[in-house]
């Protein structure tokens, strides 16, 4: 297995070609009460070096999407249809073994809750090196130590931390170890699933800033999955909003925050508190939809303040309004309303 360190030393040749393409992904969880359509027709693409935020609340399907992107959907979940093309290869169509070799080397994940993803009885430097060894890399003790040192430096960890056990590190440091592991093989795509959920705001900033820095340095594309819109605004180039298993809007970060189009996005943005002005916070009335029996037509229609007849019967298609802008809403299908 060849090392991939050489591949990103120069800027990507075809900056236009997508490094990640998701086509009509559908993931269902088969429970006793029926099939929960956790991801129901999601399509998007990611350019090399780009930062995408995948935003949604609980039950929106964002974590399931993240898992599907690395081919880690386990029963009772099942990928019912769709393709996930990473560097042109469909990860979902691969065998388990083929997929395993792609993990970490091509696409790497920074999981949620670093406290739980690190092995408590192995020193962190060994956990970093284990990933490399699993992919067939060979190195001497000194080379390994140098690799770890270099990675730790990139994520802002002191070299002394290498010989520590996870419990000896703080939450933020542990999370940075997982980032170090994720970039150890210079993947093309990094997927971070709520990497800062259990961290304090000061450490959170540090972790996200680190993630941004290393991602830029190795030229990888990144997907940040979460629900903290503030973090997304600080991190992402583009934002994709998920609701009820579907993508309701995708756009450049400025467009989404300053001119949201989909009613859900609008409500979401206006429900965000900030520290500049006190105002009455708007909530979104109603409850998230059932994934087993989603509402007919537009999945958001029961809670939508601008709902009309067509919304109740016809599911809106995701329409491209401009370059880098898509909305799935009947209000924005080009006709007058």
């Amino acid at each position, binding site marked *: 297995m060849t090392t991939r360190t050489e591949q990103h030393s120069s800027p990507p040749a075809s900056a236009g070609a997508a490094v990640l393409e998701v086509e009509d992904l559908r993931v269902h969880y088969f429970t006793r009460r029926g099939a929960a359509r956790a991801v129901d027709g999601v399509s998007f693409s990611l350019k090399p070096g780009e930062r995408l935020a995948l935003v949604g609340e609980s039950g929106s399907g964002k974590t399931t999407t993240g898992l599907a992107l690395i081919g880690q959907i386990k029963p009772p979940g099942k990928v019912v249809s769709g393709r996930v093309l990473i560097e042109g290869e469909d990860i979902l169509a691969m065998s388990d073994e083929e997929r395993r070799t792609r993990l970490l080397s091509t696409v790497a994940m920074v999981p949620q809750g670093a406290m739980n993803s690190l092995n408590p009885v192995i020193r962190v430097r060994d956990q970093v090196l284990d990933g490399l060894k699993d992919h067939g890399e060979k190195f001497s003790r000194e080379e390994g130590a140098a690799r770890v040192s270099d990675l730790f430096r990139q994520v802002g960890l002191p070299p002394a931390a290498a010989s520590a056990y996870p419990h000896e590190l703080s939450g933020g440091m542990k999370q940075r170890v997982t980032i170090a592991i994720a970039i150890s093989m210079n993947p093309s795509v990094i997927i971070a699933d709520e990497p800062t959920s259990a961290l304090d705001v000061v450490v959170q900033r540090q972790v996200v800033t680190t993630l941004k820095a290393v991602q830029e340095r190795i030229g990888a594309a990144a997907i940040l999955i979460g629900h*903290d819109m503030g973090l997304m605004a600080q991190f992402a180039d583009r934002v994709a909003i998920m609701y009820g298993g579907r993508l309701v809007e995708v756009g450049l970060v400025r467009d989404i925050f300053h001119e949201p189009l989909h009613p859900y996005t609008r409500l979401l943005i206006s429900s965000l508190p900030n520290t500049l002005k*006190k105002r009455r916070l708007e909530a*979104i009335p109603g409850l998230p939809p059932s994934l087993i029996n989603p509402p007919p037509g537009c999945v958001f229609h029961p809670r939508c303040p601008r709902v009309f007849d067509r919304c109740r019967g016809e599911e809106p298609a995701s329409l491209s309004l401009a370059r880098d802008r898509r909305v799935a809403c009947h209000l924005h299908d080009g006709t007058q309303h």
Partner: protein
Amino acid sequence: MTGPQAAPLLEARAISKTFVSGTLVKRRSVALERTSFTVAESPPSITAIAGESGSGKTTLARLLLGLIEPTEGTILYKGRSLANMNKVERRLFRREVQTIFQDPFESYNPFYKVDHVLTTPLSEYGLASNADEKREIVVRTLEELGLRAEETLGRYPHQLSGGQRQRVMVARALMLRPRVIVADEPVSMIDASLRATILETLRLLNRRHGISILYITHDLTTAYQIADNILVLYRGRVAEAGDIDRVINQPEHPYTKLLVGSIPQPDPDLPWGAATSAVTASQRATDTGCNFADRCSVAMDVCLESPPPLFRTNQHRATRCFVYRGSPVMESDDLSSAFVPSGDAATRS
């Protein structure tokens, strides 16, 4: 302009808490250092107690609720010390000082339907004499908070959403007609769009029912939205206190600056500010000086030698930092003397 000089409702007088662990070899850790503040009888206030993990804010909450005892100092309710209360007074305290916990799921006993946690206090405090009365009070309270009884009652906790569970908990607290509610991170485990509902509900309790709220959080943004005043805690010590508008928009203490500067604004055109202090300690903290000295970019010699007192930098602000030693030291231990009265704050916003 200060409010009427009424006897305080809830008072923390020079309280501190040190935890001791271990059976043979004892280890002490100071969770909260000597702190005093009061919650006035009127007008009802909303005060934020902010800090990160390890700041002592949860310890402070538990002390105020009487769930743990202070190592030093006393907690007084309506002028009576908790330790000296008789059964009747204690029961009244228990009823009038309520809480909302962070985890909406853990607050329920999974064995029972959610009705259990609502009807139990009505029986225990004698607020209803039969099942019909109980149901009537429960339904009325739920509806006041915008919850539909048929969607919430008769269900198990896992059948409700996180937001619903938390609102039912608020209903539980409200039903007892408390005077103070200590809300410990009530929205941190709730989705962003549902937070607004719960925060507005807390505001409603304050305005319509005259309940004072102690809002404990690490999220300055939500604190800013509903509180009038704030206490910022760092490692068991109050770093800064006062009018929340001032503290957040013009922070004085280096830690507060770091905290405020780290808030990710939901606007891509407002990036994080330049880092003002180190995130982690660069040198070892000393026990004798300011507890933030090891991370502080403006630390001076005096900061390492002795702990700074609280300086009254403004009528509505106190900062524990030697940078402000030009201001007078706070005469009263009571931090709330630096607060802006709630009525004034409300008319201002």
